[in-house]
């Protein structure tokens, strides 16, 4: 039985995502407790060089195959399942991202491994893996004990600092043979679609006024846009606004949108689901308006307002203009 802590490296367009370093940093700490090694799992094609950026790991398991050139839910899950079957690590950390979602639950079934998702923390406690998940829209934390000697935890991006996992070095790279039939998949990657250009790049803005479901109707957008203008910033939003097509995808902050770090993030009618908070919590100053005093957004906000946004926003705009 291995005491190793595995981290599944996530990469897109040849670049390792920050979440990988976040998990590597945590894995270092955990491997110290379990007495095992930190092993990064890198799957792809022609990206062996990237192993060098995974210096926080003791070892990199690299699987090279044409079918892994681009992320593919089926081939990646097969590959990972194969690796976990061979190595049986004590714990495998997978990012709870778009890609990670397709892997974690898949290997949980394929390899019969316990899985806890949406984790914001993982600990060893008396030799058991204990994961804390952020559930119910961030309103409740759930601490789970994972049984058995090998388990999987999928971790929300932004849960741990990336710096601890960003170490240069030359970890031992061990190349793993791909399992048979990896290219015989029922899911076939076609191409990547880049976001449409031309719109404001919200990651480059100093001031963002971000709207959420609380604005109720598309017709109320101009009111918030006016505030953004008065502040000299741009309009951003949470996911439901983009889902409703009230704003383009390029304005979406959060897990499936963009990560932003403006000087001011002004959240209007955003309750603060974990997926949203992930994308904006590092902003320098966060001011949030939401009528629900229990809204999770107030956890990360520096200043909060529970008055009706339809009263406060116009009042603020007017005062800013005068």
């Amino acid at each position, binding site marked *: 039985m291995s005491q190793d802590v595995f981290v599944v490296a996530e990469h897109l367009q040849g670049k390792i995502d920050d979440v990988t370093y976040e998990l590597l940093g945590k894995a270092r700490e955990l491997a110290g407790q379990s007495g095992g090694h930190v092993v990064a799992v890198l799957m792809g094609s022609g990206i062996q060089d990237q192993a060098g950026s995974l210096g926080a790991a003791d070892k990199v398991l690299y699987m090279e195959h044409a079918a892994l050139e681009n992320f593919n839910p089926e081939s990646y899950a097969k590959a990972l399942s194969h690796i976990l079957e061979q190595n049986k690590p004590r714990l495998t950390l997978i990012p709870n991202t778009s890609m990670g979602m397709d892997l974690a639950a898949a290997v949980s079934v394929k390899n019969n491994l316990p899985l806890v998702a949406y984790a914001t923390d993982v600990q060893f406690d008396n030799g058991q893996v204990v994961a804390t998940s952020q559930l119910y829209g961030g309103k409740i934390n759930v601490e789970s004990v994972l049984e058995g000697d090998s388990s999987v935890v999928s971790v929300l991006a932004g849960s741990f600092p990336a710096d601890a996992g960003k170490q240069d070095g030359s970890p031992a790279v061990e190349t793993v043979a791909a399992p048979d039939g990896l290219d015989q998949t029922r899911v076939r990657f076609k191409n990547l679609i880049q976001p449409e250009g031309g719109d404001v790049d919200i990651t480059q803005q100093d001031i963002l006024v971000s709207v959420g479901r609380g604005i*109720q*109707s*598309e*017709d*109320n957008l101009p009111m918030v846009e006016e505030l953004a203008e008065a502040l000299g910033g741009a309009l951003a939003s949470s996911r439901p606004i983009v889902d409703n097509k009230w704003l383009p995808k390029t304005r979406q902050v959060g897990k499936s949108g963009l990560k932003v770090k403006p000087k001011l993030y002004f959240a209007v009618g955003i309750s603060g689901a974990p997926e949203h908070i992930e994308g904006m919590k590092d902003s320098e100053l966060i001011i949030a308006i939401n009528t629900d005093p229990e809204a999770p957004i107030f956890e990360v906000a520096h200043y909060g307002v529970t008055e009706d946004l*339809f009263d406060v926003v*116009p009042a603020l705009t007017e005062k800013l203009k005068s």
Partner: protein
Amino acid sequence: MASNKLSIDPDQIIEKEHVVQEGMDISGQWNRMFEQRVIWDYNTEMLDKVTALEGGESLGYCYQCGQCVPVCPVNLVGDYGPRKIFRRVQLGEDLFQSPLLWQCTTCMNCLRVCPKEVDMIQIMPAVRQEAVLQGYVPEELQQAFENTFDYGNPLGESPKKRAAWTKDAGVPVPIMKEKKKADVLWFVECYPSYHPRGIDASKALARVLNELGVDFGILGVEEKCTCDSQRLAGEIGLFEEFAEQNIKTMKRYKFNKILVTDPHALNALRKEYPKYGGKYEVVHYTTFLAPMLDKLNFTNKLNYKVTFHDPCYLGRHNGEFEAPRQILQALPGVELIEMFRCRENSYCCGGGGGGMWLDGFMADHVSERLSERRVREAVEVGADVLAVCCPYEVSRFEDAVKSTGNEGKLVVRDIIELVVEAMGAN
């Protein structure tokens, strides 16, 4: 050159050799007459679609006299008008998909003056119901419908918190589930239960009821929206769903009459619930309190110039114009001044018939909000208090006071708030 000589189709000319009319022989050359002209100018398909609906029939009665034009509150600030509805539909506009459909606030002022009894209060819900079924419903309104279906109130607030306001009412507010029996069942309704300004009025009324020693109770979390405005906005199914639930709930308790804060609830409970088996004596709080004013001790002189806005669903729809005025005039120091549009011809706040949930939509179709126009009228007559007694109005008019730049000049108060103010501190 035949066409020059005769511009009338010879086939349309009827000449009869021998004609006897009312016993008189009028045979002769001069009995030449023309066949009735077939009216083919208008394709009546769109009009037929409306008049075929139960409730839609009277649109066909319109003869374009235009009486409704000056009294329609929306016509005054926008392009909508009852007469125009008929004309446009006659010209082929599909009302079911037209933005015109959602602009009527069902204020009933057109019906009051219409010589042909073209009844928008019937036509609008009938056509809107069809439009809702076909999926043409403005998004804001859809949200209010969904909230109502899910939570029993259009605000989307937790149904469990419906009676939360009673906790700091400062006086006892008994719940029927515990009390079982009361002289008066107070049907609080949604905005008075959840909206901060509605709650202010509810607390005031609770205090007055206690002061008067009224034996009352509320339904608390068992109460659901009466859905009168949702019905008028086309969601008749929603209305029926909650009417059945409310009637079933009220059947469990003994009471003599229902007291309402909200004129929309008055309208539903008085006129619509009997159709579903709920027959009650229902009074608006102003009607209820007006005869009891001598039992209240007014220690505080108000010194306000007050003007009163008649709620459409209390006045025109349910005929109560006097009670609110009686109460206001009984308050020491209050000078009641009337606006030009008052009583039967009162203006509309814009909240009725679904307008409460169509503010964003309406903004695209009117030059100013109805509430804004009304607030300007109140300021013009020199009032410093605009008194209201419908829970839709307080927030609508307070917003309008701000947006018309009249802050500091005019405040909006529910009549019951003024009553409590006149009663002074406990």
